[in-house]
């Protein structure tokens, strides 16, 4: 039987249904797992996404983009292929794409995580025959602390800085992680302020019905914003620019799964790194794969080779999915776990359905377009 998903020049393609999933080139019909720039590109004929993600996708694809939605779990037929979208727990509106045709079921996970996240619907395992999974953090060294631990660490750091009169700056991706962090911290410690790129997404989240604590936009040319008490949430691209100087003395921390590694923290010169990711950690990947009950697993971006090998040793029919970009996720793609900035052109010398996409464009924070 023919595969339901194949890799083409334009991206992951379902021939039977004549549509793409997260294409990296403009195509007539695109199903979008979530609105990060490496998964959602402008210029497609029609977009389909999960209902909770519509406003976020709209803000990224522009007001004119034709966006259709389905509720999580609701199924529709596209050229005879039964399509439904199921929560992936990655960011607001993120979805796994379930495809059913000719008695076979495929699931394309997009990006996902299993941890609790108050800003989006939790990951929901979907049974299938073939699973196409990401593997951004597919090595056993990547295991995330619980949300409670992350929240406690963030609060302790923020409180310590506040007491020392230093502004706390946490660098996080504008869509998803920034809102998740805002929802995690204790807003009674001080004011939360955000970079414009983050605020655009905060507004899209609020308009979508997500409850977030009060967050102020950093006023342009403000002096000593927050008086050393504030928690500033900004995209990594502010590093190296003059924007951070608005805040006087700061303590700058990066929130990323890559912060697990001491070498990465040191190389990037962050005094503080918070291990927070919207991707599944290694146990999460294994748990999700097991829960899918898939017998065949195709592993995309990240540590596809070792993860596929491990799965084969455990009796599954597993292989790396040969995309155009097979590079490993380098720890120096720290700026890259998700995309950086909604205003940044989604240019891509390296379009890929995965985290590697921005490795080429963002590279080192500070060099990324803002």
């Amino acid at each position, binding site marked *: 039987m023919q595969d339901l998903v194949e890799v083409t020049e334009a991206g992951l393609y379902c021939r039977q249904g004549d549509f793409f999933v997260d294409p990296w080139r403009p195509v007539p019909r695109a199903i979008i797992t979530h609105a990060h720039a490496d998964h959602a590109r402008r210029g497609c004929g029609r977009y389909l996404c999960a209902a909770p993600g519509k406003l976020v996708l709209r803000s990224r694809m522009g007001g004119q983009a034709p966006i259709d939605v389905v509720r999580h779990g609701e199924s529709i037929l596209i050229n005879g292929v039964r399509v439904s979208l199921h929560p992936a727990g990655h960011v607001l509106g993120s979805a796994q794409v379930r495809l059913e045709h000719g008695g076979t079921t495929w699931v394309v996970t997009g990006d996902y995580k299993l941890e609790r996240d108050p800003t989006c619907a939790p990951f929901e395992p979907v049974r299938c025959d073939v699973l196409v999974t990401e593997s951004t953090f597919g090595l056993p060294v990547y*295991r995330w602390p619980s949300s409670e631990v992350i929240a406690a660490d963030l609060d302790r750091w923020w409180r310590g800085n506040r007491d020392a009169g230093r502004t706390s700056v946490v660098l996080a991706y504008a869509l998803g992680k920034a809102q998740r962090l805002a929802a995690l911290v204790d807003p009674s410690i001080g004011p939360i302020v955000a970079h414009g790129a983050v605020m655009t997404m905060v507004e899209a989240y609020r308009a979508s019905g997500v409850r977030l604590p009060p967050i102020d936009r950093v006023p342009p040319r403000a002096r000593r914003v927050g008086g050393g008490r504030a928690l500033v949430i900004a995209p990594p691209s502010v590093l190296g620019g003059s924007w951070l100087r608005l805040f006087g003395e700061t303590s700058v921390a990066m929130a990323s799964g890559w912060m697990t590694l*001491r070498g990465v923290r040191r190389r990037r010169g962050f005094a503080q790194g918070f291990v927070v990711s919207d991707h599944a950690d290694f146990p999460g990947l294994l748990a999700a794969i097991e829960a899918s009950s898939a017998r065949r697993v195709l592993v995309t971006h990240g540590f596809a080779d070792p993860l596929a090998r491990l799965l084969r040793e455990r009796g599954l029919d597993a292989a790396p999915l040969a995309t155009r970009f097979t590079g490993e996720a380098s720890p120096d793609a720290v700026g890259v776990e998700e995309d950086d900035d909604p205003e940044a052109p989604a240019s891509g010398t390296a379009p890929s359905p995965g985290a590697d996409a921005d490795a080429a464009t963002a590279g080192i924070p500070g060099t990324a377009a803002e």
Partner: protein
Amino acid sequence: MRAFTDLFWQLDGTTRTSEKLEALVAYFRAAPPDDAACAIDVLSGGRQIRAVPTSLLRQWAAEVTGLPPWLVEESYAHVGDLAETLALILPDPAAPADEAAGANEADVGLARLMRTTIHSLRQETEARKREVVLATWRRLASRERIVWHKLLTGGCRVGVSRTLVARALAEVAGVEPAVMAHRLMGGDVVDGEAYRRLLAPQRHDADDRRPYPFFLASALDGAEGHDVASLGGVADWQAEWKWDGMRAQLVRRGSDVAVWSRGEELVNEAFPDIVAAGATLPAGTVLDGELLAVAGGRLLGFSMLSRRSGRRTVTRRLLEDIPCVFVAYDLLEERGEDLRGRPLHERRLRLEALVPTPFAAGTDAHGAGPPQVPSAIFLSPVVSAASWTDLGLLRAEARRRGVEGLMLKRRASPYGVGRTRGDWWKWKIEPLEIDAVLLYAQAGHGRRAGLHSDYTLGLWHEGRLVTVAKAYSGLADTEIVEVDRIVRATTLEKHGPVRICEPMLVFQLAFEAVSASTRHKSGVAVRFPRIVRWRRDKQPSEAGTLDDLRRMIPGGVPR
């Protein structure tokens, strides 16, 4: 061990010297003397023991986690630090320790941990080692495991210099940093008693064998505007050849002679000839200088010297084959009097009165080339010139003379501590260079963990590329990231952490010298190879050849 773990992470978490110093001072103020003594040893890179082989740790970690051994290796290759890799993959401790409260019954002091656990573990059977390691894994959180692994495998290196440790201890003791640096030299702080003596405010015994902290020169390479033009008049400076040897101090006190390397190791065993010659000096003499291998009126070069310096025992044969001399260039102590505060021109006069000028007739006025020495100790000649231009011309002859360039020392300067800029400069000759092709790449460690930043480079020989040097990257961080991506994308084969890549990238390789070598497949050894720039404008076919390199060997080389 908790206090030391906290210190480790504090030091790791900052690049600011002031914060590191603060963390060290706080640690030493609070630590029990036994623990503090142990910490000094670990922090200053003392010889650590490997209580458990890392291969066993990997094996047990695979067993405990149920991961296949290849995946443990794959993870290690990615992380670049075994202690950290294992700490990250192991299951969380059974009962999470309450780190904030610092209350853990099982917490033992660093000294006790080293003595009773780590040192004694080395003697134990494999089964017993396994038992202890697995039990400890169940108890420690990830951040503690990293430090523990490093202690256990004898690989605990923290990003602090000995000078900084000395500064912290000086602050705790309330003495001058230079005094503390001196106290720390050579004598191991073996226990709490020794630590208390170290911190004693009064002066220590004068008749010990300890050397003075070495004063180090900075490179005069045009960086930060430092070049000869910025130094003022040439008459204010004393110039000497920069010998390609091994820096050392010769300490003669009481009836003792001690030869200390710059690494603060006592190297008497390797240099009995120097020790014997040192015994002829008056008591209370400390010379700063350079150990050189010299035979038959020729400098033998560093590689010959290193055949001596590594030895614990030296055969008579080796003494005859590779005789060594001590070239003295400074007098730090005379008749027990510390001269370091006196100006160099005064120390030099006293030195000249004490140590023979070695150069027999036949050598030129500048003492070029090697001496006909009656004694194994002689004076480093002063190279005099009327102008910087003249001195520059002499420097240009350095390679022919078998030296690395010139040392410039301010005549009015005292003998400093550590690398204090301004008074001592090394004015090295321009390095030799060749364009070479990247053949293998290996992930770095520490700050470059996970990035392919250690490169093996090759040159053309008979239509093939042969490896000639391994060099750490001297590229900018952004270039390293770029090279890393290319390496990953053009890997032909992987051997653990080493990737064989398609020969595509050309780098300009700089080095100090080339010599014939039987130990290298290429038949040549390059000294201090490092990458100076990425030649994006060159194709691999345009890289240099092994013959080009051979031609740089002084006197040529037999094929």
